[in-house]
């Protein structure tokens, strides 16, 4: 019996990889834990930015922001949302601002995630884009990443939607007015409305787009750095860290920059991690190391350079690269630690929620089983 040719084996390999990719893309939603964590952390970033600027909200985004009028006039992008705030007085703007914070909180909690997510994004843009002169890249990645995760299924875990979904059953969606009512009910109960083959494909395609966006951010940031002599010679991070806006804790920064080895290590690690991030994702062990380094990198930026919300946004979206296995281990660990707190919360919240008018609560399978 003759051996298969090299070309034949090559084709078999391509065929096998194609089948695996097709199966990955079409048969299930991937990285559901990562998407859920991305929802929580990106919502926290939105809340964090707004709460941080609460005391200066009128100066940055409200009527007081008229000082950056030339920049506002030059920023003709985001035409629908940016007009929402422009005519609000200080009092109206206060209520609007609080409303957007509240919507971001609902997004973190996963309450009607898709609708609330879209509202949060519009609200966030309408506020943040009032101050283009003080904008930064953290705004950009938060805006772009949040748009992309609206296409992902982010309410599968750690959300009120998941809880509601577990308590209710999907209504059969026929034709006519009954069908429309069933669709609305299913939407409200976070039950499936669109076919899984479609939502699986959409979720996974956008997951790839978000992943690639992040890989390109890291790669280009590292690539630009590699062109600079100060990065090349390992002294680059010393310079911005001396500026007061990036030096919240002078003693910490001075302690670090005092030792040249620390400066060199920080400079080279930042550059290497950024350039190598995408390549490291190809190997399971290298991927874990790269994600760990990226998280440490962003935590360092948050503390040493006072950029917490940019860092949190990046960590949020990076979480899609963490494997489901890791999340399951993490989920079990945190659930065991937080069980008493969660039980207490639901013991208090459930009786209140059940008394709400129009509440037609169905027993969850877990409680039914316990009753039996």
């Amino acid at each position, binding site marked *: 019996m003759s051996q298969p040719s090299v070309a034949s084996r090559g084709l078999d390999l391509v065929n096998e990889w194609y089948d695996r990719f097709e199966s990955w893309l079409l048969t299930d939603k991937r990285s559901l834990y990562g998407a859920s964590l991305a929802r929580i952390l990106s919502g926290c970033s939105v809340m964090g930015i707004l709460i941080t600027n609460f005391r200066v909200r009128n100066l940055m985004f409200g009527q007081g922001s008229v000082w950056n009028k030339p920049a506002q006039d030059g920023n003709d992008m*985001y035409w629908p949302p940016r007009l929402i705030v422009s005519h609000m007085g200080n009092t109206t703007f206060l209520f609007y601002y609080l409303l957007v914070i509240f919507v971001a909180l609902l997004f973190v909690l996963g309450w009607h995630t898709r609708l609330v997510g879209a509202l949060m994004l519009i609200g966030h843009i309408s506020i943040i884009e009032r101050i283009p002169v003080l904008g930064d890249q953290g705004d950009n990645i938060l805006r772009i990443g949040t748009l992309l995760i609206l296409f992902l299924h982010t309410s599968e875990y750690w959300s009120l939607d998941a809880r509601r979904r577990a308590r209710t059953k999907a209504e059969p969606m026929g034709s006519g007015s009954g069908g429309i009512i069933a669709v609305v009910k299913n939407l409200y109960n976070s039950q499936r409305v669109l076919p899984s083959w479609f939502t699986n494909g959409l979720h996974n395609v956008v997951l790839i787009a978000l992943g690639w966006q992040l890989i390109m951010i890291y790669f280009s940031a590292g690539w630009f750095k590699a062109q600079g002599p100060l*990065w090349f010679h390992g002294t680059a991070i010393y310079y911005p860290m001396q500026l007061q806006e990036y030096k919240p804790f002078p003693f910490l920064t001075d302690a670090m920059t005092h030792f040249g080895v620390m400066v060199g290590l920080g400079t080279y690690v930042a550059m290497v991690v950024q350039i190598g991030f995408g390549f490291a994702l190809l190997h399971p062990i290298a991927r874990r190391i790269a994600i760990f380094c990226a998280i440490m990198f962003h935590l360092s930026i948050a503390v040493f350079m006072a950029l917490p919300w940019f860092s949190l946004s990046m960590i949020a979206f990076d979480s899609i690269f963490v494997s489901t296995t890791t999340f399951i281990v993490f989920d079990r660990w945190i659930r065991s630690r937080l069980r008493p707190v969660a039980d207490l919360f639901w013991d208090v919240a459930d009786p209140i929620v059940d008394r709400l008018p129009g509440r037609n609560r169905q027993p969850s399978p877990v409680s039914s089983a316990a009753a039996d």
Partner: protein
Amino acid sequence: MEELKPSRHATPVPSIARRLVVVTIGVVFAIHTALITIWIQPSNPFRDAVGQKNLYSYINNKVFPFEQSWSVFAPTPRRGGENVKIRAYYGRPGDPDTRVTEWFDITGNEDQRIKYLVNPSRFHSATRRLGGNINSTVGQFNDKQRLIIAGALYTSPRSKLADLLRQTNTRGIAGLQAISQYLDNDEMLTRYGTMYATARWGKGVTAVEFQVGHRSVPNYTQRNKENFLDVPFTYYRVGVRKAMPGNADAQAAFNGYVPKAPKSSKDGE
């Protein structure tokens, strides 16, 4: 390690027609992703192939722009600090009866607000940002243009400043871009300064004047000998500008933020 179970969304591989729908979605996102990739990388042949104008109009579309730049601190990291000082005029500048306040260091006040804060508001970097923008454009100006911006602009309209700067431009389109950026930042600083001065020294501000300073971080080799904060600023004057007040709500916002000048100090004179 236990094997992962399929989620509740698991389906068999769909039919070819359905796969085509997903492929179409994939193609749309692939094109989007390719354009983003080309945009955020350093200048490259792919960008030329797509066309700079086409790429710009996609990335900076008016509905949902994908604008982003990741050359932060690279290739050359930021290594300079900025400072803005202000004084206000009550009355016509140059008249003997006109009250002129002492200089006040706005950026110094911002520095005090951000120290030991891991989550400072970006507003506390406002004058630092405006000063930096002005520094970077003035650095491109010739001596005549620097003299012009140091001059007073009280009776003439702001368009006069623009005309004078353009007439003395010697750097073609790049020079015109720098002038445009300067004018925007000059106006922003004037607006900011007017409301700031009103909040600090009281109503009736007719004009404001600025000093914009710059200093560089000492070289790495000197890091344990020289302190950046001890490096003196090199200032230049942005001349007197006619006040540009905001409405009552805008002024109220500044009133709640700006520290009032002590009545007994020279600062308020």
